[in-house]
C-alpha cells in the first residue's frame, strides 16, 4: 500500500495512529474472536483511511512568501484538487490538515499552538518550506527554529519556497501515512492473560526482528 517508508517519529504521532497498528502486522495465531475483530479493524481502518486521505480539508496558516507557492499549488496548473484537498477551510475547527506556510516567529508561536489546539481530531500538520521546517536561514532572535518545537509535524516539505510538485509529493506522503493508520474497532476488552501473552509475543518478536 505505502509507496515510501511511513514517517513515524516517536512522540510526534497522534495517539490514534499508534493503536493496534503493529499488532496486526505480527504473525501470531489468533483466536476466532480476535481474528474477526482484527479483520473488522483492518477493513474499517482501510475504509476510514481511504475516506480521510481523499478529503483533506486544509487550513493554510500562511505567514510568508511560501503563500505564493501555496496558491500556485492550489490553482489550476498544479491543482491540488486532484488529490482531494481542494477545499481550504479558514477556520481550524473544520480543518484536518494544518499547513504551516511560511516563517513562524516567536511572537506568533502561541497563535500557531492555539490554532493547532482548536483543530478537531484526527488532525495532521504539514510544514511547508524550510522556515516552517527548521527556521530556514532565519537563525536569529525572532524566529522559531522549526514549527515542530511547538506542535507535532507529520510531513516536512523542504524548499525556499518548495515547488508545487514538492508540495504535492508531501501531500501524497501524508496520504500514505493517513492510509496506514490503524484504529481499534472493538470495545471488547481483552482478558489480562491474553493481553499479557500478546505483550510477551510482541516483545519476543520485537527482539527477533531487531526493532
Amino acid at each position, binding site marked *: 500500500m505505502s509507496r515510501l517508508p511511513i514517517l513515524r517519529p516517536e512522540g510526534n504521532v497522534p495517539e490514534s495512529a499508534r493503536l493496534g497498528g503493529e499488532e496486526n502486522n505480527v504473525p501470531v495465531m489468533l483466536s476466532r474472536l480476535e481474528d474477526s475483530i482484527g479483520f473488522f479493524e483492518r477493513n474499517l481502518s482501510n475504509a476510514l483511511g481511504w475516506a480521510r486521505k481523499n478529503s483533506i480539508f486544509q487550513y493554510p496558516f500562511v505567514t510568508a512568501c511560501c503563500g505564493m507557492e501555496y496558491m500556485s499549488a492550489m490553482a489550476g496548473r498544479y491543482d491540488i484538487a486532484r488529490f482531494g484537498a481542494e477545499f481550504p477551510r479558514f477556520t481550524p475547527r473544520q480543518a484536518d490538515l494544518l499547513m504551516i506556510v511560511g516563517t513562524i516567529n*516567536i*511572537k506568533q*508561536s*502561541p497563535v500557531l*499552538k492555539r490554532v493547532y489546539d482548536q483543530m478537531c481530531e484526527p488532525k495532521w500538520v504539514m510544514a511547508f518550506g524550510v522556515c516552517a521546517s*527548521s*527556521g530556514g536561514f532565519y*537563525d*536569529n*532572535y*525572532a*524566529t*522559531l*527554529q*522549526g514549527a*515542530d*518545537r*511547538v506542535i507535532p509535524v507529520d510531513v516536512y516539505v523542504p524548499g525556499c519556497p518548495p515547488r508545487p510538485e514538492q508540495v504535492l509529493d508531501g501531500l501524497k506522503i501524508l496520504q500514505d501515512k493517513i492510509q496506514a493508520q490503524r484504529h481499534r474497532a472493538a470495545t471488547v476488552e481483552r482478558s489480562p492473560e491474553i493481553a499479557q501473552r500478546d505483550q510477551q509475543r510482541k516483545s519476543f518478536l520485537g527482539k527477533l526482528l531487531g526493532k
Partner: protein
Amino acid sequence: MAQAFIELLREKLPDAVVSSHAEKGGDDVVTVKRERLVEAMAFLRNDPATDFKLLRQIAGVDLLTYQTESTGGASLAGREGPAYEPRKKSPVEPRFQVAYNLYSITKKKSLRVRVELRSEDLRVPTVTSLWRTADWWERYIFDMFGVQFEGHPNLQRLLMYPEFVGHPLRKDYPVRKRQPLVPELDFPDLVRGPGPGPGGAGVPMSQTHVGRQNVDPTTYD
C-alpha cells in the same frame, strides 16, 4: 549635495552642530548636539530654505564592533582615535548613534542628522511633534537598541513581544539567544539554531561571531 543646508544650520544654530562630513555614497551627514536636536530639526523642517518635510527613516547604530569588523582599525569618520579599544574591552564612547534620514521634497535633497549617545545615558528628545512618522521609528529604535526617547507619547516595544528581555540589535546581544513564549521541544541540532534548552540560551558570541574575539565574554555575552 546638501552642504548648503548644513551651512544654513550652522548660521542659524552655531552651537548645535558638532561636526559634518560627506559619506562615501554622497550623503551629507551633520552631527548635532542632543540638547539642541529638536531646535535643529524644527529649523530643518520648517524653514522654507531647507524644507525637509519628509522623515524617511530613523536608524540606530551600535558601534561596539565597528572597528574590528568594518574599518580594520581605522578611526571613525569625523572622530579622533579608534572607535573600539580591544585592550580596554569596552567600547569607546559614544557607543550609540541615532541617525535621522531627512528628505526635502521641494529641494530634492537628502540629509542625515546624527546624534551621538554614550551608553550610560541613552536619552534623546523625541521628534514626534515634528513628524508623525517618528512615532513608530522611535519605538523601533527603543525596541532594538534601548534608546529612551524623552517625551514620546507611547514608548513601547514595536516589533518584539513585551516579555522580551534585552535589545536584540545591540552588538552584545548573544546571536543565538532565544526567548520562547511557549514551551518548546529542544533539538540539539547543529544545523538549526539552538532551542531553549541547556546550551541554547546563549552560545557565547565570542565563539560564533567574526570580530568578537577580543571581547570579554563575561562582560558582553
